[in-house]
């Protein structure tokens, strides 16, 4: 570490500016006492500091400096105004920044949705949630429902007439927010004090969903001890259940028994027998509403429950509206009757009164009917039970369908066509027969027939004998009837066999094997004739033949033959007797996936019979070689000339253009000078 003496300037400066610690100050002073040179320096530094302070103090900015700077800044950076300022101010807020980012992200997401064509999921309304909750709370309609029991307990307390125990704050009179239902409830002139009703309402609201709770609050009237103010509600309860059972009749008997147990009755039953012997049906049962839950519980034991719904419709308001209107109508009726009794006024007036009375009575009857209907609906809950026996989908029977495809080659298509037509009988029905002849005289035929299953093998066998079978395919399909899947009891039936036949002429058939060869001989004409004779002997047919003689004396004969495969080998051997057999190439086309009668399949042979003529080349010897060389070099020179021409044609315009520019530039430069 450097000594104080060596770094005296640093130490003195730090001392001057109050940057030395107490310890350091002591060290410095000790050194200054000891060292004369440093003491002198210290003196100089102190004097200089004084001068510096004095001199620089004059240079300090005046008090108005900040104001000047601010003024200058304001002048040079004018404050933004209006919308821009508002926006920039807004963007300074964290919340605004976050909102902006969120908005951009949301926009991007929506954009993405547009691109991917994904439909936006519609937000579910609060009503949906409420319904869902209602359904969830209700679906296990057993007795152990803590939530519901809680409500019930409250209702009971209400019924016992001690609403103060609920310790509820006095509900604000928010009649505006109350549902239509509540209004109806209030409108009904019950014997209960309105305050209590309001209490019940609040108690209901406390459980979460007002409507759901309302229904529960209404329920105890049927399940538990009926609360007086709730017993007057008109509720129609409906339930549906879908069951899969083993035996339909058993289930009907049991349901009837259950209905009797619960003081109900079976209203209607209907059943249908399916093709596979299974029964399906529907039973409508009426039970007392308070027994509905128990009844549903019981029928659940009958089989597998597929689906169950439970619904409650509150007709209180409509019911009492109608009731009031009925009362009014009765009063009106009485007054009209009174008017008739007094019999004052004109006859026409009386007639008018009579007419009016008739109308009023009609109304009364209609309303009475409706009220009665509602009464019956309210009195009994309706349970619709759909029953289906197990394995409803089991097939009743199987049908075996056979389809066959036959391709035939025959020398005479028409004959076979007629032969097959002659097969038609009661059990062999020809559904389609077509004989085609195209412009070049080629004949082909297609036929379709339906054959009774017992005849099918015989007919197919006979048809196959008519020609050479090129292809035969059968396809069997088992079709389940009246259901799907497997069944042990279903019967199996054979359907008619469908047979499709195509007949073509032999010539059109592609050869199974193609052979080409050359035979060199001295006399072509003679050998070609021999060849033909040989082919006839082996059951082959000459399809075409040509004969040529060129100026050099070469003779050439082409012969195409077709023989059945079984005779192919012997024919090939006999060809050796004709001359020297050369260039034999054999090409075989195996047709996979089809049945081939190989012995009779055709094989094509193409034979070229030729003589070697007197072949002398004109182009030989030193002179010819020289001439060829000269001709080639002349050609090469001509080719390079052409290439040079092309190059010049390509480059020349550029050269001319550049030269012109340079010339113009030079002229301009000279003109400037």
């Amino acid at each position, binding site marked *: 570490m450097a000594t104080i003496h060596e*770094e005296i*300037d*640093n*130490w*003195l*400066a*730090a001392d*001057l*500016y*109050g*940057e030395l610690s107490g310890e350091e100050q002591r060290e410095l002073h000790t050194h200054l006492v000891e060292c004369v040179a440093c003491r002198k*320096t210290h*003196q*100089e*530094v102190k*004097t*200089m500091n004084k*001068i*510096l*302070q004095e*001199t*620089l*103090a004059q*240079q*300090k*900015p005046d008090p108005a*400096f*900040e104001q*000047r*700077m*601010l003024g*200058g*800044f304001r002048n*040079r*950076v004018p*404050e933004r105004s209006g919308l821009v300022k508002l926006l*920039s101010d807004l*963007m*300074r807020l964290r919340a605004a920044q976050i909102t902006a980012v969120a908005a951009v992200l949301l926009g991007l997401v929506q954009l993405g949705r547009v691109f991917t064509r994904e439909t936006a999921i519609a937000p579910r309304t609060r009503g949906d949630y409420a319904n869902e909750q209602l359904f969830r709370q209700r679906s296990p309609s057993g007795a152990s429902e803590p939530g519901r029991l809680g409500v019930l307990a409250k209702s009971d307390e209400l019924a016992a007439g001690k609403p103060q125990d609920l310790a509820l704050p006095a509900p604000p009179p928010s009649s505006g927010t109350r549902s239509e239902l509540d209004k109806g409830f209030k409108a009904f002139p019950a014997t209960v004090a309105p305050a209590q009703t309001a209490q019940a309402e609040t108690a209901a609201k406390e459980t979460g969903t007002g409507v759901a709770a309302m229904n529960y609050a209404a329920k105890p009237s049927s399940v538990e001890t009926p609360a007086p103010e709730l017993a007057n509600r008109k509720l129609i309860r409906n339930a549906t259940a879908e069951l899969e059972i083993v035996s339909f009749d058993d289930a009907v008997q049991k349901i009837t028994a259950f209905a009797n147990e619960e003081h109900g009755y079976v209203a209607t039953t209907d059943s249908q027998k399916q093709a596979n012997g299974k029964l399906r049906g529907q039973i409508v049962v009426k039970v007392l509403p308070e027994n509905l839950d128990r009844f549903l519980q019981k029928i659940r034991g009958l089989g597998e429950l597929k689906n169950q719904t439970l619904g409650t419709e509150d007709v209180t308001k409509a019911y009492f509206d109608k009731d009031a209107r009925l009362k009014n109508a009765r009063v009106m009726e009485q007054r009209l009757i009174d008017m008739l009794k007094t019999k004052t006024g004109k006859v026409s007036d009386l007639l008018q009164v009579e007419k009016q009375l008739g109308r009023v009575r009609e109304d009364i009857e209609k309303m009475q009917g409706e009220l009665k209907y509602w009464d019956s609906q309210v009195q009994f809950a309706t349970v619709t039970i759909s029953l289906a026996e197990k394995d409803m989908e089991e097939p009743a029977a199987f049908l075996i369908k056979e389809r066959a495809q036959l391709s035939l080659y025959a020398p005479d298509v028409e004959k076979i066509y007629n032969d097959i037509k002659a097969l038609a009988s009661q059990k062999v029905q020809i559904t389609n027969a077509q004989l085609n002849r195209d412009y070049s005289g080629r004949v082909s035929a297609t036929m379709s027939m339906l054959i009774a299953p017992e005849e099918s093998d015989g007919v197919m066998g006979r048809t196959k004998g008519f020609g050479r079978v090129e292809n035969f395919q059968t396809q069997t399909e088992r079709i389940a009837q009246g259901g799907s899947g497997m069944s042990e009891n279903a019967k199996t039936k054979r359907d008619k066999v469908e047979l499709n036949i195509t007949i073509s002429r032999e010539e059109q058939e592609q050869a199974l094997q193609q052979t080409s060869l050359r035979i060199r001989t001295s006399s072509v004409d003679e050998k070609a004739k021999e060849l033909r004779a040989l082919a006839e002997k082996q059951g082959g047919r000459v399809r075409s033949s040509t004969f040529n003689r060129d100026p050099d004396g070469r003779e050439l004969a082409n012969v195409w033959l077709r023989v059945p495969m079984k005779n192919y080998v012997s024919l090939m051997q006999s060809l050796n007797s004709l001359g020297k057999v050369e260039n034999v190439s054999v090409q075989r086309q195996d047709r996979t996936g089809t049945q081939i009668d190989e012995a009779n399949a055709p094989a094509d042979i193409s034979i070229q019979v030729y003589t070697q003529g007197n072949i002398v080349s004109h182009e030989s010897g030193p002179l010819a070689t020289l001439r060829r060389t000269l001709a080639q070099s002349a050609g090469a020179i001509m080719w390079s000339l052409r290439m040079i021409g092309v190059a010049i044609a390509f480059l020349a315009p550029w050269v001319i253009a550049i030269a012109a520019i340079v010339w113009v530039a030079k002229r301009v430069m000279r003109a400037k000078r």
Partner: protein
Amino acid sequence: MDASEREQYRAAIHGDREAFEMIIRTHSRTLFAIAYGILQSREEAEDVVQDSLVKAWKTRWRVRDPEKFPAWLATIARHRAHDLFRKRRAASVSDEATEATDSESPDTTAIDQQLHSALAALPELHRAALTLRYFEEMDYRTIESMLGLTNGALRGILGRALASMRKQLRPALASMD
């Protein structure tokens, strides 16, 4: 740096004009000290401070960390002053003859003149550190952070600056004692 200062710098960076004007009030003297240290001219230093403030406002978004805002301001001022200083020196070289007589102001005393020439002989950084010390009476740590120096570097710088000036002014000092 306390929280309110930090918040002020942050607001200024995000474009709060009032916050920035507040910073002008509190910091322009510091900037002046730096500029004057380099340029040795009050008028030029004022211009530099003014320019630096405008430039700082326009490029305020470049500062990521509000803590570094004052140091960043100082850097702008230093660079501007340095640019101007270089320009002036280039100009003074070409017009040396005329400059020599002009600089002799009649009202400056001999010791002042000597002091100024001694200051002028110092490197820019040393001059800026000195003026910050004498104008604003800042402690070493603050000056270091303002001028972007490492901790403890200033001690040597100011020591050397004083030593060099002392040597130049020695005759004058001796006469004053």
